[in-house]
């Protein structure tokens, strides 16, 4: 499906990609991780045909640079930083839909599922939306078409827990027919979403490993947290995960998305001294 063969990219004298060889098959969900400057974004830009490079990049045997429209017609891309577009939301959706030969209503529907009321913001400039709204819209544009490859750079970073759950559901719907590459600085952000991890450092692949595919994207975990005493900051964090409190804000209960379990435990770990009981059980 996707093949990188000895890909090398230099910026002036700095080598940013140093002989990348990767084969990614249909249905694989790859976490592309690494620190800043590791080469993740450069690799993605080579895959999108945006950078010239040595070596070969092919998607279904086609070079993304010389077969732009055929290749990019099958790729849904969500950038890490939303572009500062001044055009209205409606215009962006129509433009993307027209280029990708999809129905704008499909994008509207996905945005709606993510909790974004598109109809209300059609005339608003994209750049004036909040970070979360921009992210939802870009995800809706990427998923609102027949993309066989999804490339996402920190896609869920700006989403609230509820939108993350729906985002995971949306990805789960594409598991059989799409290949996903999800880039992140941290593995815990994306660990639940992927079945393969590729770690980059200094322009090289330093780890390429399969991940036990036990976590399903649609899994839900019933969560119960009991606090030894009330702490406003911790309570606020738990409320952010849509957990409901009882017993004078000491007992918190609710559902956590399966792929979010590591991320959730990361939040809990900051307040371990306050936790007197914790349970996470699959529904």
């Amino acid at each position: 499906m996707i093949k990188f063969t000895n890909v090398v990219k230099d910026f002036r004298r700095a080598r940013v990609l140093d002989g990348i060889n990767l084969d990614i098959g249909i249905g694989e969900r790859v976490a592309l991780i690494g620190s800043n400057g590791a080469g993740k974004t450069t690799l993605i830009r080579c895959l999108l045909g945006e950078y010239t490079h040595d070596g070969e990049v092919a998607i279904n045997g086609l070079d993304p640079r010389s077969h732009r429209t055929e290749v990019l017609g099958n790729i849904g891309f969500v950038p890490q930083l939303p572009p500062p577009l001044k055009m209205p939301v409606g215009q962006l959706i129509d433009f993307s839909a027209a280029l990708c030969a999809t129905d704008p209503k499909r994008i509207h529907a996905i945005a709606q599922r993510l909790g974004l009321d598109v109809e209300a913001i059609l005339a608003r400039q994209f750049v004036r939306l909040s970070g979360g709204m921009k992210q939802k819209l870009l995800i809706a544009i990427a998923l609102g078409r027949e993309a066989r490859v999804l490339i996402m750079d920190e896609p869920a970073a700006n989403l609230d827990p509820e939108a993350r759950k729906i985002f995971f559901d949306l990805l789960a719907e594409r598991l059989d027919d799409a290949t996903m590459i999800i880039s992140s600085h941290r593995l815990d952000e994306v660990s639940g979403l992927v079945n393969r991890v590729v770690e980059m450092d200094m322009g090289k692949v330093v780890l390429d490993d399969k991940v036990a595919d036990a976590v399903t994207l649609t899994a839900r975990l019933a969560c119960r947290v009991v606090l030894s005493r009330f702490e406003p900051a911790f309570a606020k964090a738990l409320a952010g995960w849509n957990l409901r409190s009882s017993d004078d804000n000491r007992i918190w209960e609710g559902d956590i998305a399966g792929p979010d379990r590591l991320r959730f435990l990361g939040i809990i770990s900051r307040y371990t001294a306050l936790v007197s009981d914790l349970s996470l059980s699959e529904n």
Partner: protein
Amino acid sequence: MKQLWLTAKLDIVESLRARWFQIYTLVFGGIVALLFLFGLTESRVLGFIGLSRLLVTYIQLTMAILPIFVLITTVRSVAGDREAGVFEYLLSLPVSLSAWFWGKIVGRYIVVFAPVFLAMLGAVIWASIQGIEVPWDMFGYYTALLAVMALCFLGIGMLISAIARSTDMAQGAAFMVWLFLLLFLDLILLGVMIQGKVAPELAVTLALANPLQVFRTAALALFDPQLIVLGPSAYVILDLFGTTGYKIFALAYPAALGMVSATIGYFIFRRGDLP
């Protein structure tokens, strides 16, 4: 073709909301309004009165403002978009590079030319309402001259945007190009002629390679067909082209320069890194 128009439309919508466009429109609309306000249509200079007097002044002012405005705003927005990640996202969509680049030029051309033309058209409509005689020949030729001027500097602007890798560099280069053309216009050629280093014919021919000089001379030729104000230089120009020939040259050469610059810009853009 569909992709090209989609890109052009996108660029128009983006530009209409940009501050530079609002200022740009205000400047040219404001010039016409001020010229009317100061009663220029009633004054008589060099035998010109009425709307022709206004048009002569308008095109002189436009020649001073439009090139630097078009150069700076084009490189700022194109190089700025690339730096801000707009290219990274929009070029991840299935649009061909030719449709993208030429679509941007078409969109931007409409946005750059429309305010200048509409301001002049507004003056003509107002004059018609007021019963002032409209010099249609002059209006037609000035419109063509403005259209070509916009194309020329847009093409140069797109070339600079394709070469420069940052907004600062692009802006600096655009300013240097404009300054070079401006200096080339008067100081350099005048200097070498005075020193007797080049033949006057060569100096005049070199001056005509400068689009700013071509526009200025063409605008002069419309109310001074013998180019008397240019002195002996006029002989070289008129011997070489003739009055009508020069009018055609003044449209064809800058248009070709703009298109060639844009085409070179396109090949550089297509060959290199996009974002």
